[in-house]
């Protein structure tokens, strides 16, 4: 189980102080969890704190009872950053080899790495330099590298951004296959249509606060997800305005 308890993140100091995540608590047990929010809502900050890229100002994040930023937890997780930037002069396969070598006792053969590249639909381009890749191919490679350690938990930050319809379909199928294998997926996205297809539960975040967490069906309650999402955010804004 992934457990976030009273997590707060403040960027900057004194006059430049900005509250990005505000006393955020959430337990996630569901296979595929989708995190919804506008740009700047705090989704990426949360995923970066879970993966140990950022330190929380206060609060704890545990993965099966172990701090998520610890090496033990990192060995069990895969992460795909938003709009990934790569080492341009490397080939896709070389990049996969490099990523695999960063896990102890993880000597992957090229065939095994090829399996991950096939799963992401980028196998044919494995020997081309990454600088020749399109945005969609980079997204696919970013997804493939997150699988090199056979992770139990997968954290994907806007994985469907920039993909064409075929690419989105392929990646969603891959996510569903990973779910069937028993892996847990944590997905950040603002493409609501995809959330309905892939996620079991969603969390709605706005201005660093959690407004809703639970099953997609309960949240929608027979209405379109987009409509419910907008209504939830607007209700929060109105409540905030009244309080002020």
């Amino acid at each position, binding site marked *: 189980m992934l457990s976030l308890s009273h997590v707060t993140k403040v960027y900057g100091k004194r006059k430049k102080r900005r509250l990005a995540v505000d006393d955020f608590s959430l337990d996630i047990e569901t296979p595929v969890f989708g995190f919804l929010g506008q740009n700047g809502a705090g989704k990426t900050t949360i995923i970066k704190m879970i993966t140990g890229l950022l330190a929380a100002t206060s609060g704890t994040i545990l993965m099966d009872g172990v701090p998520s930023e610890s090496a033990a937890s*990192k060995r069990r997780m895969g992460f795909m*950053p938003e709009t990934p930037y790569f080492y341009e002069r490397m080939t896709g396969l070389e990049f996969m080899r490099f990523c695999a070598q960063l*896990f102890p006792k993880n000597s992957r053969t090229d065939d095994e790495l090829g399996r991950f590249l096939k799963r992401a639909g980028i196998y044919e381009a494995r020997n081309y330099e990454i600088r020749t890749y399109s945005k969609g191919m980079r997204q696919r490679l970013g997804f493939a590298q997150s699988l090199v350690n056979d992770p139990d938990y997968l954290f994907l930050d806007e994985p469907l951004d920039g993909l064409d319809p075929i690419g989105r379909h392929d990646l969603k199928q891959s996510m569903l296959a990973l779910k069937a294998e028993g892996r847990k997926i944590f997905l950040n996205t603002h493409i609501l249509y995809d959330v309905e297809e892939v996620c079991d539960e969603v969390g709605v975040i706005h201005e660093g606060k959690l407004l809703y967490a639970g099953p997609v069906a309960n949240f929608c309650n027979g209405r379109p997800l987009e409509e419910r999402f907008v209504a939830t955010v607007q209700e929060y804004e109105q409540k905030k305005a009244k309080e002020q």
Partner: protein
Amino acid sequence: MRNILTIALHTVKLEIRDRVWIALLAFALGYVGLMLFLSQLVLRELPMVNAFALLGVYFFNVIIAIFLGTTLFYRDVERKTVYFVLAKPVSRREFLLGKFFGLCAAVFLTSAVLAGAYLIVIAAAGGGFGALGLLAILMQFLEMSLFIAFAIFVSTFSSSLLSVMYTSAVFFLGYLVSSLVSDARRAGITGIRYILVNVLYYAFPNLAKFNIRDIGVHYVADPWLSFGLAFAYAAAYIILLLFAAIWIFEKKEI
């Protein structure tokens, strides 16, 4: 240790594919080749050929070290490629040290290629195996390692352009400070101004300690002792810089 080695090897691999590095190395080899030509025409005396060739090797090594040190580490952090590494079981300390050793290895590779070219020039100019010349290049490598450590240190808190400026400033100040204290004494400077001079002397690396390039022209007393002292000085300075860089990088929000 394994992670440091993996990142270092990866860094070298990336660097030798970088077009700027290849271009600089080609220029450097061209310069040393020019020395070969000039040695036949103008620089007829071996010590002159030696000094000019070593100066060329040094000059290109400085450019490569400053370029690599100030861009590679910063670029990884700024472009967020570092996310791929740090989300895996790799600490920030291991990442930074891996980058440092990788950059040093790339500069060592450059120095080795240029040293080979240097030996060819000296042999063509009628000299034998230039062991002292090689020692001078080795000491240049120590100096370059110090530059890289400084460049990485600066890159942890400033932009790439500023890092180039700071590292270049250290290059110039590093040669100025060597005679600063004795010059101040000779000029009769006392009090706070003398203290300030001393602060400058100890704050900036004394690069003159690494310079035995004039061996062909001037007598250098016990070059091996100079090397030993320079090695200890560089090691101490590099360790301090890397400690400071790690301290800042571990607190940095990326």
